[in-house]
């Protein structure tokens, strides 16, 4: 039976791991699920990596990252999963007398209780504050083991979004949009004279003059076009 990669004359190149099963396929490479990433001895499995019978195994398609002892696979695309502290942009999808349901682009809607909402109203007055279809900038307060989450609007800058547009981008492109030390994003803000808030769930709030907004949108679609290898 076939177990793991086997060194054969046709794969004895450096990038294939010429050492065969004893080597590893790390380096700035792409991994696919099931790829053997080498011996687990001395390493810790990070995101997207699992140890199975003493070997590091890739679980996702993505870029292999090596930080000290930590080996992880950064997925190329994936759906958003909330983590506590994330800044997110959500849409109100429904409400009851004392809470709102917020859609974050995650598997489950988050809950925004009245006590963490933007203001105080009488019991039953949730819709007068924020109604279905409204967009909000909020923070993930807690995430249960089952991935249901609670969001809060208590905090600096958290608010109901009243103007501008919300654009969706692949979460994995966030780094490219923000740039090293936030440089790319800063430049984009300056050149388009727009207020831009990049949220962790792959949504961006862009506010400003219509021309500026259109300019930002063109730049974003160019970034995603390039990341798709020029394919449309």
């Amino acid at each position, binding site marked *: 039976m076939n177990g793991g990669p086997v060194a054969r004359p046709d794969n004895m190149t450096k990038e294939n791991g010429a050492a065969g099963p004893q080597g590893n396929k790390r380096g700035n490479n792409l991994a696919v*699920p099931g790829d053997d990433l080498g011996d687990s001895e001395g390493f810790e499995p990070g995101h*997207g990596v699992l140890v199975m019978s003493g070997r590091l195994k890739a679980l*996702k398609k993505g870029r292999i990252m090596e930080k000290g002892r930590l080996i992880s696979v950064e*997925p190329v695309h994936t759906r958003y999963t909330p983590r506590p502290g994330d800044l997110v942009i959500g849409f109100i999808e429904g409400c009851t007398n004392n809470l709102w349901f917020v859609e974050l682009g995650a598997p489950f809607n988050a809950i925004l209780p009245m006590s963490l909402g933007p203001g105080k109203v009488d019991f039953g007055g949730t819709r007068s504050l924020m109604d279905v279809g409204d967009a909000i900038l909020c923070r993930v307060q807690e995430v249960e083991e*089952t991935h249901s989450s609670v969001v809060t609007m208590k905090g600096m800058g958290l608010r109901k979004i009243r103007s501008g547009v919300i654009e969706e981008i692949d979460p994995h492109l966030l780094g490219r949009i923000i740039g090293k030390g936030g440089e790319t994003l800063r430049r984009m803000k300056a050149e388009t004279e727009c207020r831009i808030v990049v949220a962790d769930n792959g949504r961006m709030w862009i506010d400003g003059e219509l021309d500026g907004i259109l300019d930002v949108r063109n730049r974003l679609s160019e970034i995603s076009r390039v990341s798709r290898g020029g394919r449309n």
Partner: protein
Amino acid sequence: MGGYGDVQMIDENGVRADGRGPGDIRPITIETGVVPVADGSCRMTWGTNEAIVAVYGPMEAHPRKIQRQDRAVLDVAYNMAPFSTTDRMRPGFNRRSREVSKVTQDALESVVLLELYPRSKIRISIEIVSAEAGTRCVGLTAASVALADAGIPMTDLVVSVASGKINDVVVCDLNKEEDNYGEADLPMGILPNSGELVFLQMDGDLSQDEFKQAWKYNMDAAQEIHKLMVEALKEGDSQ
């Protein structure tokens, strides 16, 4: 299985009607990102089979009764498009499609890390738009590529391939003619990195030796197909 012994589909030199040797598979192409609105997708052609698979999710599991508190469920729908077969396939409920959906779900649930997404479902739509023979293998293989394309964590890809018997000779990857008149069919779902199995079916008549040969053909073909899957996945994102 028909078992029409009088139809000659392989000659004494082991050359099949379409020119392949006993262990050869039909030509395969794999492409990802073919359903732009999906979270992950794959188009696979295999001979004149063509499958298009789209993956959506994880998302909240609906209806409630399919929800599992401790893990995700895979909502697999295998379907043959009306124009995929020689005689038009009537849309709607179909027992065969249901069974294929179920065994495909069972196979994929064995590799996806379901515990990471309690109460969720991951929707996998397998659409056969052109059918020759071995559509369940194409569907399962393409589905595992689409799952990987969607960034779903899984311990391995799944390669599915079938071997069978024609004119008393064991051969790999039956085409339409061979499937119609063949004497056995052994489809398997193989984890290419470990050689373990997550899917197995068989019908027909095979001796113990023939069975071993068919098994070996499938294992060898799986390695060959796996290379194409990895290539397609990496190529789709060479940046």
